């Protein structure tokens, strides 16, 4: 199948305007005749559901949390980018576009990224109007900070809780629509399958997590806003319940999965402390505005940090990347941390850690200013590690944080299944092979507030999906499939918990398809993952029944999907014989250890088509660069 991104013609600044004019409209009186199903209530889902409700569509909103406000967007700390140029430091839509394309290592679509940069302006307006308490200057105007991969200050923030405040803005708008009767919420309800009838997405099958009831939801269009798949790696900065089942099930029903190997490893997380650790905690990238990253110059130096004199420290980011320094992009900073730890210069009990030191900043600005900027992050660090970051440097290490890959979508955010839209982190998005800090919030809200509501309307106006009800055979079949999968998990009755398999899979993925990858490791993963999956179906133990609240059953279902997704991730990483962004193949690097792209052979989006019992088929969407010609990405 030919993959058409449906990017409008004309010069970049006119593409989105043109597309909006092309969109067909549904008249206000007719909108309430259409039901749009939104799965997930993070930034993208909540903003999409609220906006669709405001427009007058009937919106069904399904999510597995107990409240829409719990979605993991809430945990985003540092900020949201927008090309407002309030700091008069040379920012513009064009520059945000260029930074994002370059930051993504030339593996994103120009048209999408330009639109994202354009829409960023309106997001800030909308959020301020909702009462999002962004940081302010004394004159009452909005404040900005800097983030990685940019030389301008364009990041808006609400202390270290920007994601929380943006999500609450969207959540409050969503609940206003609930009160108005346009949106209906189904909390504690997890999507387990997509229903496709006559070639169109027409609804989902979901499990009520309290009663265990298998329910079907019928709709005229489906919007997935279910987040990324980083939890396949077990230890990550994702929330415990973030999972990939919704997008994976949609993939199995025909939605192509794009660039799964583009995973983001965040350089500043609290290092792993023990075997029982359940998740990793991020320390916001904003800390790198004032913190300096270093390790001892000499391998095996076990002195405590204050005993190491200035001359025996290696501020390796400042040394290797003088123009961006500690604000080098995430992929670059993570790899540099791994490199110094591999040389035996890592710090902390495990040797897997580097220092993030605020001593200079505290001397320069005073502890009060640091508290005002980062107080909650310092507290969080102290709670988790029992150490005081005002006195001793923080120890940090990279961890899985975000996935740039996801379901393939065209310019209108529609997947390869008609009527199935995918927004936010769940789609393969606008970040190419590496996302810049503070751009996830921007993309989620751009998709949800400003793009998908128009695209869905146009789809409905043109497709006019015929009436259908839950008795249609497609619903019956999907419901039976789901029940059979649950039954299968319950009936194994082995002796191992789902979590123990998840941990094992996660370690394998981290070792072979983590910060750096090579052919041998990926081939090993591709033989071991199917073996582990077989073992899972022989030895799994899920106590209790399906007809009640059963967390073990939920976990088992998610882990079952991670096996397949993990395998596809490794397959994609193996096929992409180049290094770009977060995908670093050891075989392909420059003499000084930087990622070596191969634009001649790999300047495309890899979109995989699922086949039952057979290897997936690879489809390629070529990437064309006109406004931002690819060059070697340098932060030196």
């Amino acid at each position: 199948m030919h993959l058409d991104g449906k990017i409008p013609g004309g010069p970049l600044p006119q593409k989105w305007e043109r597309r909006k004019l092309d969109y067909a409209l549904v008249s206000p009186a007719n909108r309430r005749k259409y039901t749009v199903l939104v799965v997930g209530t993070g930034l993208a889902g909540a903003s999409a559901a609220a906006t669709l409700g405001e427009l007058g569509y009937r919106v069904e909103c399904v999510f597995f949390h107990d409240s829409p406000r719990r979605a993991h967007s809430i945990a985003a700390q540092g900020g949201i980018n927008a090309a407002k140029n309030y700091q008069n430091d040379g920012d513009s839509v064009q520059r945000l576009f260029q930074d994002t394309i370059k930051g993504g290592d030339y593996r994103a679509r120009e048209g999408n990224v330009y639109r994202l940069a354009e829409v960023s302006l309106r997001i800030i307006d909308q959020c301020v109007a909702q009462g999002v308490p962004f940081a302010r200057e004394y004159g009452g105007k909005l404040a900005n900070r800097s983030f990685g991969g940019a030389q301008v200050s364009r990041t808006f923030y609400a202390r270290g809780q920007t994601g929380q405040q943006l999500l609450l803005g969207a959540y409050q708008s969503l609940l206003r629509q609930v009160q108005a009767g346009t949106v209906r919420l189904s909390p504690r309800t997890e999507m387990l399958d997509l229903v496709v009838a006559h070639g169109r997405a027409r609804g989902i099958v979901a499990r009520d997590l309290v009663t265990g009831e298998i329910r079907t939801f019928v709709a005229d269009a489906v919007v997935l806003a279910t987040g990324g798949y980083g939890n396949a790696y077990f230890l990550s900065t994702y929330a415990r319940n973030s999972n990939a089942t919704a997008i994976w099930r949609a993939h199995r029903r025909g939605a192509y999965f794009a660039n799964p190997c583009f995973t983001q490893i965040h350089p500043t997380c609290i290092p792993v402390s023990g075997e029982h650790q359940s998740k990793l905690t991020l320390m916001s990238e904003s800390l790198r505005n004032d913190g300096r990253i270093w390790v001892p110059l000499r391998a095996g130096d076990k002195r405590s940090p204050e005993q190491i004199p200035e001359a025996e420290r290696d501020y390796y980011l400042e040394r290797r990347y003088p123009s961006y320094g500690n604000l080098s992009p995430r992929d670059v900073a993570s790899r540099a941390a791994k490199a110094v730890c591999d040389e035996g210069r890592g710090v902390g009990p495990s040797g897997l850690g580097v220092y993030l030191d605020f001593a200079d900043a505290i001397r320069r600005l005073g502890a009060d200013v640091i508290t005002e900027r980062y107080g909650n992050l310092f507290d969080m660090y102290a709670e988790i590690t029992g150490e005081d970051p005002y006195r001793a440097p923080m120890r940090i290490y990279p961890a899985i944080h975000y996935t740039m890959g996801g379901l393939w979508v065209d310019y209108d955010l529609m997947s390869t299944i008609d009527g199935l839209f995918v927004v936010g982190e769940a789609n393969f998005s606008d970040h190419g092979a590496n996302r810049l800090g503070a751009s996830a919030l921007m993309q989620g809200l751009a998709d949800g507030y400003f793009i998908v509501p128009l695209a869905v309307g146009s789809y409905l106006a043109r497709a006019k999906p015929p009436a259908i009800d839950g008795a249609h055979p497609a619903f019956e079949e999907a419901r039976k499939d789901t029940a059979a999968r649950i039954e299968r998990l319950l009936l194994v009755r082995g002796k191992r918990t789902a979590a123990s398999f998840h941990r094992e899979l996660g370690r394998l993925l981290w070792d072979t398809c983590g910060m750096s990858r090579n052919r041998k490791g990926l081939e090993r993963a591709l033989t071991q993952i199917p073996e582990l999956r077989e073992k899972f179906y022989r030895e799994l133990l899920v106590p209790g029944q399906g007809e009640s609240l059963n967390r073990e059953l939920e976990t088992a279902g998610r882990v079952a999907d991670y096996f397949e997704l993990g395998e596809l991730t490794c397959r994609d990483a193996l096929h992409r014989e180049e290094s770009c962004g977060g995908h670093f193949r050891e075989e392909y690097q420059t003499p000084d250890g930087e990622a070596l792209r191969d634009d001649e052979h790999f300047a495309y989006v890899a979109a995989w088509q699922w086949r039952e019992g057979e290897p997936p088929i690879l489809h390629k969407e070529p990437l064309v660069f006109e406004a931002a010609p690819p060059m070697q990405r340098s932060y030196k």
Partner: protein
Amino acid sequence: MRLALEVWRQRSPETPGRFVRYETTEASPDMSLLELLDVVNEGLVRKGEEPIAFDSDCREGICGTCGFMVNGLAHGPLQGAAACQVYLRNFRDGETLWIEPFRAKAFPLLKDLVLNRSALDRIIAAGGYVTVNTGNAPEANTSTIRKDCAEQAMDAAACIACGACVAACPNASAALFTGAKITHLGNLPEGQPERGRRALRMVRAAAAEGFGHCTFAGECETACPKSIPLQVITQMNHDYLAARLSGEGRAQPRHIEPGTPKRHR
């Protein structure tokens, strides 16, 4: 470390619950309390028993999903921390921890430590927002907000809706939660047009959900993992009273039946 847990187990809302004792030997000071529950649960599952049901998600104190009483204190012994942020180094070796759900009429129990806290969503739905459709917003820097107002709004907006304030309150009042949202939006220019209406509707919604009234016991402020100050309740009472006294919410035009003759002057 050796820690014993006495955990509230209750299969369903209808069946009676009880404390069940679990002895653990695998605890270590760097482990979080929820990770200890994970370990206990893995042990239970391996024995084919049903694990302890408890809610948690982000495990960094921001999503508000987790929460239960530990030795009678909401979220455990630490000021300004949610249950997921409590590490075992805060307990003594050999200690027994009594773990039970947040208890309030408006938070029906579903299973073990898992509650239905949708009542808090309904309070927000009643008025905890600014009415502004997508696309309606003016340029962001046209509104000027004094820094201290923005900071106070942010202090209140930090609420994570965990329900600890309700659980700690002798009246099971949601005043700290409701007051936090009223204070957040009431401190910003964007929140002014609906300020009175918001206070009236949210306070009434809280009462209708079965939350008690506030008698300023102050337990909520201590229990709050985000240390939301008690002043938000004063702000709520102020906005509510101001709205009542100014006749807000009663300003509808009188309905006149068609055909009604003119009143005699």
